[in-house]
């Protein structure tokens, strides 16, 4: 979780660190990186992304490239989702599991043609890179961790497309959600995808550190199309409003995809590391599952708070919890006994020795505005 930055020399900084400081960003430590939690107000930033356009520096994420003849088969084996039918120019959400079916990380896999780019969480980048290296025996693949040289900006909101069009002098109107493009800008390599972690229309821009600085400056000083710098605090609220998973909070290495309610990201028709364990779990019952909740009684349910059934039985715990300024209510995720999610009864969350009523609700809590291709 985010903490105040100490003077540890182990803290890493993104290429845009001085910009965040100059903007008055409140710098905290997250997964070994110094990043802005907020610039002015977490709540204002989270509201602004859904009513305007925000920009996030998420350069702490990891980018692992997989090249070579066997790259498709390799990633097909190491991830739960189908990679074989992921066409060039598209990206997909996938899980990397261990042999026990526990999730090592949730990643985005980009098919860039001669290579795949796997985007991992900052805290798991080294582990995923090592995992890929260890598992590469017998596969003709080349694995490269290019995280240090790649910066990542996320532009999310209603003006994301016109801003990108103006910035890159390119037309993105035919680029749909989860599609990617690569091109050069004044000699610099850019990978862009119409994607994001907010549920708004948006673009994620991968480039070298120097170019990222130029782009950030251009985007944040554009007079006609405004993009407001937003921090980690707002980012967490936005993803939670959509029900997107946060590794380390909602799930961890002992959570299986079924427990994480991520069945949709698992293709049980193919062979992959962890499948045997998941087959077993499919046959027996899944004991615990992640679900979304909205508070009925007004109270702030936080990570680790205990969850009880209507009968007063302890059935699980809160994983994510936040105040949603876009819904004006308290929301979150719980990890509870699976059968408690089927009876339609409310949950009771213990906040400082008192029980507060909450209702299980299906995600997303906000209507997504991502730009999907119209299905004919």
């Amino acid at each position, binding site marked *: 979780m985010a903490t105040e930055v100490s003077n540890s020399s182990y803290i890493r900084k993104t290429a845009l660190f001085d910009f965040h400081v100059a903007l008055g960003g409140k710098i905290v430590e997250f997964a070994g990186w110094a990043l802005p939690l907020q610039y002015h107000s977490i709540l204002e930033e989270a509201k602004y992304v859904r009513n305007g356009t925000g920009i996030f520096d998420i350069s702490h994420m990891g980018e692992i490239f997989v090249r070579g003849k066997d790259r498709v088969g390799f990633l097909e084996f190491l991830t739960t989702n189908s990679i074989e039918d992921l066409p060039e120019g598209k990206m997909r959400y996938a899980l990397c599991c261990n042999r026990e079916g526990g999730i090592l990380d949730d990643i985005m896999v980009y098919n860039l043609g001669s290579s795949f780019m796997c985007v991992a969480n900052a805290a798991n980048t080294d582990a995923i890179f090592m995992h890929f290296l260890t598992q590469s025996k017998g596969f003709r693949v080349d694995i490269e961790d290019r995280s240090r040289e790649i910066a990542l900006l996320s532009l999310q909101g209603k003006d994301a497309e016109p801003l990108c069009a103006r910035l890159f002098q390119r037309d993105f109107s035919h680029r749909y959600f989860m599609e990617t493009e690569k091109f050069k800008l004044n000699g610099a390599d850019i990978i862009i995808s119409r994607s994001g972690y907010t549920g708004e229309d948006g673009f994620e821009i991968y480039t070298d550190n120097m170019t990222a600085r130029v782009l950030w400056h251009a985007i944040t000083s554009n007079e006609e199309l405004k993009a407001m710098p937003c921090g980690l605090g707002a980012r967490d609220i936005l993803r939670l409003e959509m029900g997107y998973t946060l590794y380390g909070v909602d799930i961890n290495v002992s959570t299986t995809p079924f427990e994480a309610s991520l069945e949709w990201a698992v293709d049980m028709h193919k062979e992959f590391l962890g499948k045997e364990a998941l087959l077993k779990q499919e046959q027996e019952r899944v004991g615990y599952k992640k679900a979304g909740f909205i508070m009925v009684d007004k109270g702030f349910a*936080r990570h680790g708070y205990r969850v009880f059934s209507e009968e007063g039985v302890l059935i699980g715990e809160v994983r994510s919890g936040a105040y949603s300024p876009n819904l004006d209510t308290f929301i979150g995720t719980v990890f509870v006994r699976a059968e408690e999610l089927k009876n339609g009864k409310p949950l009771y969350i213990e906040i400082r020795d008192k029980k507060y009523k909450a209702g299980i609700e299906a995600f997303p809590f906000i209507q997504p505005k991502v730009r999907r291709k119209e299905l004919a």
Partner: protein
Amino acid sequence: MRAEDLMFSTTHEWAFVSGDTATIGITDHAQKELGDIVFIEMPEAGRKLTLGEGFGTIESTKAASQLYAPLSGMVIETNNAVTRSPELVNQDPYDKGWLIKIKLANKDEVAKLMDFPQYSASLE
């Protein structure tokens, strides 16, 4: 109220003493440290507080913080505006963001509090 007219505790609450009653809130320093305030748990009217006793919780996006009574007394009023709009405490901590009013039990306790210059100095 202005900060200059208030008395301060070491736990960043302020008190405005007027006759037998005191209005209590948290300081600008406290609201800055907390960040966006999203929820405030207030005591009920009639509750008796002792100096230093926890009288409620103030929750921000980051964490829940205890509120400590800077003076002893009985709660006579809580600020409904702040219960409805907790962000008032961020916006105007010394005036519109007041939390509770109490009937003082012991006026001698006021002398134990810091004045504004002393409190400001303590923050350095």
